[in-house]
């Protein structure tokens, strides 16, 4: 194309492309917008989405497996053994509960929503729910305590355990008197640690 031809071609081509572009934009002007008015309208989240953790503490047997599985250590569990005379009931999967769970804290601020704590749970009591709106102004409020034991109950459980342990110790002592030929375990002394520190290369000579 000659220079003059290119000049005219460019002018008409640019006019044509402007019209093409405007046709596209006007079509979008009248299509339905993709925006969802979030707080009033909520999008459906996927069925197996992983969001806030929930613990059904009635089913928890205090096995600590979720806490071990957690890669960010956001689950803290404390347990107290129950005495044989106490019946803690059964879980919904017919496992006998043997431990009190006075503390089951999840620091949801640390949680990375990997869901690794959910799989090891033998009673399926720790689950991920579909709740995702739980922002707080204070970070302390993000530490969720799931334990339902009161301070008095915890104290009572501890006391009972101590009492039981004391009784057991007394029984043991009595049994030991009767049969003195008990095995005494000799503690193994660890090998002495080398007192000399490893040779550090002298940086002044280098």
């Amino acid at each position, binding site marked *: 194309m000659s220079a003059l031809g290119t*000049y005219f071609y460019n*002018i008409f081509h640019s006019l044509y492309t*402007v019209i093409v*572009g*405007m046709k*596209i*934009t*006007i079509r*979008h*002007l*009248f*299509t*339905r*917008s*993709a*925006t969802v*008015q979030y707080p009033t309208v909520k999008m459906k989240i996927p069925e197996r989405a992983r969001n806030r953790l929930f613990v059904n503490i009635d089913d928890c047997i205090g096995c600590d497996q979720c806490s071990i599985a957690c890669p960010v250590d956001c689950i803290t569990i404390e347990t107290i053994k129950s005495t044989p005379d106490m019946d803690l009931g059964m879980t919904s999967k017919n496992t006998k509960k043997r431990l009190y769970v006075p503390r089951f804290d999840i620091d949801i601020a640390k949680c990375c929503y990997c869901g690794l704590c959910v799989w090891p749970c033998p009673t399926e009591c720790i689950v991920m729910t579909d709740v995702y709106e739980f922002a707080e102004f204070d970070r302390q409020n993000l530490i969720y305590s799931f334990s339902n034991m009161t301070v008095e109950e915890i104290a009572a459980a501890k006391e009972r355990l101590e009492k039981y342990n004391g009784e057991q110790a007394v029984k043991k002592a009595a049994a030991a008197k009767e049969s003195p030929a008990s095995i005494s375990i000799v503690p193994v002394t660890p090998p002495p640690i080398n007192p000399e520190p490893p040779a550090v290369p002298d940086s002044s000579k280098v």
Partner: protein
Amino acid sequence: MKFIQTLLANQVLVSILLSALPLVFIVLMVLVVLYTEMKVAAHIQDRVAYMRTGWHGVLQPIADMLKLLQKEDIIPTKADNVLFRVAPFIAFTGTYVAYAVLPFSSIYIGSNINLGAFFLVAAGSLVVIGILMAGWASNNKWSLFGGIRSAAQMISYEIPTALGVVIVVMITGSLNLQDVTKFQDGGIGNWIVFGGPLPWTQKFMLMPFTLVTFIIMFVASIAEVNRTPFDLPEAESELVQGFNTEYSGMRFAMFYLSEYANLFTVSAVVVSLFLGGWSSPFATFMSGPIWGVFWFVGKAYIFMLIQIWLRWTLPRLRVDQLMFVSWKVLTPWLFVCLFAVGLILVI
């Protein structure tokens, strides 16, 4: 006007009142255009823009305005204090002064001077001074570059605009925009885009040339008000905003207001030169002083809509392309039109 004069019986009061009328109009119009622009922009991108402030966010432009007015007015210590303070008002005065010669209706025109169209072109140049002043006074090299860039652009595009005005003036024989509008009165066929109310032979010969002039004038007017695809002076995403980088608060609002007021001015000029201004497209049906305001503002509003539509369609031009369009495309084509129209009118 006679009515108001007898009511107040004071020439000074009347002139103050009448000159304040466009200011009220500008503020209201800017609110409407801001809202339209945001909504059209959003819907072109399949979004919905603001929805919370009032019904579908209608109060948002007012909130934006109030926010800008309340903001701190920061003046850089190394800036030229006087020029920096004065620049936005000069730019706004340049746009506001142009409203004096816009024929809003058959009975309302700020100043019925014989050099209306000429005055418009001259007043447009005052904005360039304001912008250049702002860029210089900021004492910031990017602002100065922005100012110079805008000055180069606006001056370049003033030539096609002025030539377009000349072509219309050749047909109508008057520089007074009121007369230009009256010339086109009496239905859509009498508009200058379609050759004006001339004998059939002349009309048909004129029509292609007036149409081309109209398109060129429209393109040049978009460039005059620094809007996309010619928005190099304030390319906020790439070119450090431009001349108004250092401005904030009220003074920035002044530039903003000036820009949108200018948007209306150029649309109104194109409308009154080519599309019959306040005259009704249905001859005598729906025509009259009040309908005149409706037609004038309505036509200008449609033009603003097209400008907004273009803004979200086209990418920005490069500086060399910008100059190419002005000097090698629009100006020569207008000279051809000028020659042809002159020839047709002489025969």
